[in-house]
């Protein structure tokens, strides 16, 4: 209407203000992103500084390679080697157990399952990923260990095998869901191409689908492995915690102690400032370094696999080796030898020979099978694996539900604990867990979304961005017990928060920060570039574009990440073990500096500290599962709704 007056607007001033605003906002997101890096740097520095006295006083080599961890002996010995070996053995065992089962299940779900079964099983398995580790530990302690002791006729079931089986079960859902994603996203054309050449379904799966999904499946395995290495509570409850290197090393019935277990057990009792205290920080440092190494190695492998799969770059040597038929034989032969060695140390020479012979027979038989026989045999194995997975998870759930249900009552849900938790209820623990989670999310959500906006929208791939990204990765790989250790020494002692809700919230918030950053960044990247260009072309500023065009369609993704974080924060024990949790509380906390009860901690104490509380222990486990399960169910439902709506916001 008034073109002249518009033209005379004081343009420079306007431009200046919005320019400034843009800068402020940009800086804000950068600051959010830097928090992740600072946190990692700070945690690492903290561990190293506190561990340094141990290295200095005892000697670096003596700490790293000493074969005895015996802090109370005279003279005390602080050799980390047996602990590191314990961690590696348990993790390796868990992977040997979990990888075949979960990859088989993922193949079944992605390739063979009728849609109805798939739509039922897939969310169920994702739900299981949310079962808190202390619940698994509790089950392992009560059922698995005893079962091993009786069925192998050994003095005690607390062993590498118990830890491996339990950790394996715990990593099943993670590996299955992520591998299944990878398998399902193999383009349909590959399958059709192979089938059209007259390949059987099994040949297509084995030679085309699985190799194409290999990067994703590898990522899934590494994710599971990271979880296994960093797991504390469950492992601590079933491995026996004897700081020995099994002899022979394949003796899976020997007890062991892991790095995480050592921290979980000893941190609470050690005299602060003593040499033993610093040695525990050395343990934490080694643990962190191992997880970081796994993460870095993993991303290197993934990059190469990805490069060779997408045809960019020359074929990787790894893929080439995997593809060679002779090398393909090496894996089963190795497996047979390993199985024989384990059988030898468990049962003696005869079973060992039997296992080895069976393995060789199998190897000899496989190439002689016709294609149809091979397919039948392979599918049979797949079905068996799926049945095993479903049975294992069902047994655990059934055990807890059937024994936990009788404990549930109005009084149990609304009362305070009495008689050390044997009687009374868990209301303060439910409230405490909700408070901890709310605080953690209140902290992590703005920071995480801000960081993700920086990474996804204001990206300029430079040194800083790469640094931030590695920071997020490393934070993501940091074991939860390390967060607990850091929270205890830094927030509780150094900042004098005391054992308090606040310390727990901040610690948990740091722990879930990378999850929120990653899921948010992922959601932002899914928003088509065209939308951004459309908005910018209309003269919108970048922030306007992000706020009005990019964030709304990304909201469901961000919500999913948030809810997953809620589930994780609600179920974790290790980070609040020393920072926030009290065993008993008659009144609810009234300030952030009060300690709180929390469900996972309550369960842990009941299971390990209070004899004769079995019914309430099962009841607490059930409530915890229901709580976390409800959170996951909401996530899955939300995602399904948005998927059905085509991802468009309503």
């Amino acid at each position, binding site marked *: 209407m008034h073109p002249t007056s518009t033209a005379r607007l004081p343009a420079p001033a306007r431009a*200046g203000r919005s320019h*400034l605003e843009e*800068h*402020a906002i940009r*800086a*804000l997101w*950068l*600051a959010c992103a830097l*928090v992740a890096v600072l946190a990692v740097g700070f945690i690492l520095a903290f561990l190293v500084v506190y561990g340094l006295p141990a290295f200095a006083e005892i000697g670096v080599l003596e700490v790293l390679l000493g074969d005895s961890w*015996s802090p*109370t*002996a*005279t003279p005390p010995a602080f050799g980390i080697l047996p602990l590191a070996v314990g961690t590696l053995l348990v993790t390796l065992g868990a992977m040997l157990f979990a990888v075949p089962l979960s990859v088989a299940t993922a193949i079944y779900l992605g390739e063979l399952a009728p849609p109805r079964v798939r739509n039922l099983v897939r969310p169920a398995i994702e739900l299981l990923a949310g079962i808190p580790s202390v619940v698994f530990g509790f089950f392992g*302690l009560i059922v698995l260990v*005893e079962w091993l002791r009786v069925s192998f006729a050994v*003095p*005690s079931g607390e062993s590498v095998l118990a830890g491996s089986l339990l950790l394996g079960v715990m990593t099943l859902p993670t590996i299955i869901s992520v591998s299944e994603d990878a398998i399902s996203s193999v383009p349909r054309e590959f399958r059709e191409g192979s089938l059209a050449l007259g390949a059987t379904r099994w040949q297509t799966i084995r030679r085309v689908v699985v190799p194409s999904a290999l990067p994703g499946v590898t990522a899934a395995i590494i994710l599971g492995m990271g979880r296994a290495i960093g797991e504390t509570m469950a492992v*601590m409850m079933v491995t026996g*915690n*004897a700081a*020995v290197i099994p002899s022979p090393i394949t003796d899976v019935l*020997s*007890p062991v102690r892991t790095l995480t277990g050592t921290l979980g*057990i*000893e941190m*609470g*009792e*050690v*005299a*602060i*400032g003593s040499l033993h205290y610093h040695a525990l920080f050395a343990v934490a440092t080694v643990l962190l370094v191992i997880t970081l190494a796994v993460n870095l190695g993993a991303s290197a492998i993934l990059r190469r696999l990805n490069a060779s799969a997408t045809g960019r770059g020359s074929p990787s040597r790894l893929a080439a080796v995997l593809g060679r038929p002779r090398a393909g034989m090496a894996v089963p032969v190795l497996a047979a030898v390993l199985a024989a060695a384990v059988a030898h140390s468990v049962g003696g020479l005869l079973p060992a020979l039997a296992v080895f012979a069976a393995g060789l027979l199998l190897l000899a038989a496989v190439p002689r099978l016709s294609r149809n026989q091979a397919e039948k045999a392979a599918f049979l194995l797949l079905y068996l694996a799926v049945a095993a997975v479903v049975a294992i998870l069902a047994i655990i759930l059934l055990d807890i539900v059937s024994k936990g249900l009788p404990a549930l009552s109005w009084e149990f849900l609304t009362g305070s604990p009495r008689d*050390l938790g044997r009687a009374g209820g868990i209301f303060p623990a439910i409230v405490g867990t*909700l*408070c901890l989670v*709310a*605080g953690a*999310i*209140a*902290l992590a959500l*703005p920071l995480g979304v801000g960081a993700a906006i920086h990474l996804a929208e204001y990206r300029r791939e430079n040194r800083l961005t790469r640094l931030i990204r590695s920071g997020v990765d490393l934070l993501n790989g940091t074991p939860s017990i390390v967060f607990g250790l850091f929270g205890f020494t830094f927030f*509780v*002692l150094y900042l*004098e928060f*005391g*054992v308090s809700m606040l310390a727990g919230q901040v610690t948990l918030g740091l722990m879930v920060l990378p999850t929120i950053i990653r899921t948010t960044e992922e959601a932002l990247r899914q928003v088509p570039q065209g939308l951004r260009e459309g908005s910018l072309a209309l003269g919108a500023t970048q922030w306007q574009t992000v706020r009005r065009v990019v964030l709304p369609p990304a909201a469901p993704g961000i919500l999913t990440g948030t809810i997953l974080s809620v589930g994780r924060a609600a179920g974790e024990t290790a980070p609040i073990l020393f920072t926030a949790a009290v*065993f*008993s509380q008659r*009144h*609810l*906390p*009234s*300030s*952030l500096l*009060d300690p709180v009860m929390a469900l996972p901690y309550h369960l842990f*104490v009941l299971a*390990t*500290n*209070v*004899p*004769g509380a079995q019914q309430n222990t099962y009841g607490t486990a059930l409530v915890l599962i229901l709580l976390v399960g409800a959170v996951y169910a909401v996530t899955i439902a939300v995602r399904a709704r948005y998927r059905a709506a085509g991802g468009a916001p309503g």
Partner: protein
Amino acid sequence: MQSHRSTLFLPGLAAVVIGALLVAGCTGTGETATPAPTGPPGGPAGRLSVTGSTTVLPVAQALAERYMDLNSGADIQVSGGGSSVGIAAVGEKTAEIGMASRGLKDAETAKYAALEPVAIARDGIAVIVHPSNAVAHLTLDQVREIYAGNVTNWKDVGGQDRQIVAIGRDSASGTREFFTEKVMGTTSTTATMLEKNSNGAIQSSVAPNPGAIGYVGLGYLDATVRAVPLQVDGTAVEPSIETVADGRYPVARELYFVTSGGATGLAQEFIAFALSGEGQQIVEKEGFIPVAA
């Protein structure tokens, strides 16, 4: 010029905003919990945090429950974590009372000079086995040889032919330290001993396992395990409140409440209650041995 100004100004702004978000988030959660009721007139009121040793935890919890029944204005929170968590918490003044199943270490007295331990109970350490274990009694030497890994079968100490599974406390625990001091001497513990981080965990591992041996405080004795009498000067002594109290049972120690710079207010009242006649009755009921003469 403008960009120069903004580089100085904006990060500061960002920091303020983040701080605000953080505070807002936390306060928001604080409000979701209902505050503790303020007490009726009469008894001492306020909040007391008691934290530390898992061995002392049951008795402290029982004391606290009774005390809160008597004084509804008082809110006593008892948490575990371990002796040193308790001692550090008191030293750092994040808790009023620390529970310890061991005396103070040099490192601790050096760091926190004002710490004062008060013994509130005595605890006998019982050697426990599976209820079906037929071994009649053990000498301290035999217990030591078992935990040193030199005796590995029950038949060598008068039991069935069955492999021994030694279960003990983690190396940082006060109980382990006391056991080492009293039983092991300079002999080192076998590396194959299974380590547990609480009395309850030892008890529940021994209960189902016919070959197991463990040690726990008297408070953890129940029908699921059998306490083995220890042979002292030719006579077998059952671990019990009487035998510990009269000094016949050889493996007993003191449990402490630790305060910093002398207890005041509610903490002082609570410790006084623990040492009172009623308090010591509770101590005894929880399976510990009263300290007051």
